[in-house]
């Protein structure tokens, strides 16, 4: 199969075009993968709206009135409440892991036990995020059943 790559200027122009005679299982897999990978999420940096790939977000944290999205390289502000972000991202491998944090399971490298039924999740940027015992069961269920 031939693969062509074309460079574009902005993230908005990014797209995957599938040229096929028939939509076989392989093409469906590529389509699903591209759709999941390419989904954009609106964030703000220096009062400018940007679109980042949902899959690039490591975790989303509420700090007082503000909500921030953390990627490996940057921190962005999100103009919505944590529960709104949770509603928007539920079913997309994001899950609440404590009162103020939503974690992206696909960016968790590993987990280790912490005190009192809690877990510590090692993220792709080597940062550790606490999974509280209240949400540990749901996180485990997502990893064991939905991943």
């Amino acid at each position, binding site marked *: 199969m031939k693969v062509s790559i074309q460079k574009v200027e902005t993230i908005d122009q990014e797209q995957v075009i599938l040229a096929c005679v028939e939509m076989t299982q392989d093409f469906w*897999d590529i389509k699903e*993968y591209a759709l999941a990978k390419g989904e954009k999420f609106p964030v703000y940096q220096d009062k400018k709206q940007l679109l980042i790939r949902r899959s690039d977000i490591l975790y989303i944290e509420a700090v007082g009135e503000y909500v921030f999205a953390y990627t490996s390289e940057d921190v962005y502000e999100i103009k919505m409440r944590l529960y709104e972000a949770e509603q928007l991202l539920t079913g997309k491998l994001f899950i609440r892991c404590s009162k103020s944090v939503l974690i992206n*399971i*696909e960016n*968790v*490298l*590993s*987990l*280790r*036990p*912490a*005190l*009192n*039924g*809690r*877990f510590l999740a090692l993220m792709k940027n080597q940062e550790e995020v606490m999974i*509280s*015992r*209240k949400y540990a069961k749901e996180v*485990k269920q997502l*990893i*064991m059943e939905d*991943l």
Partner: protein
Amino acid sequence: MKRFWKNFFFTFIMIQAGITLAMGIMGLIFLKGTRVPYEAFFLPFFFALLCMIPTLIFETKREPGIKETIIRKCCRFISQELIVLTTQKLLAPGTSTSLLIALGISVFVIAVIIQFINWLYAKSETDAMNRKLSAYHKKQKNAGTR
């Protein structure tokens, strides 16, 4: 709450098993050849119940931080030591100091074993999740490089 009671009974059974084992080992070392009355069979149950009192006191619905958890665990352990040693002294005023020290050490060893078993259980859970995560990452990597 369900999780608390599950943990409570799990810890209770482990403490009971630990006390039975400690009684057996200490008896063999210090009181070899001594006959024990039937009441002695109730001791593990009785002492395990006493040891669980601090768990009820120091348990909180709110999730404490790491520092607070460590402090709570230390307070719980000290209370358990005090309760067990005081009860032993009240039930048998003639208990020698060496036996009290042995009892204190047994409580410490049982507490450490219970923490270790809890950690092993949590570790087995995270290991299973890590295997799933690693398989997921491998699959993603293969999909990305194919």
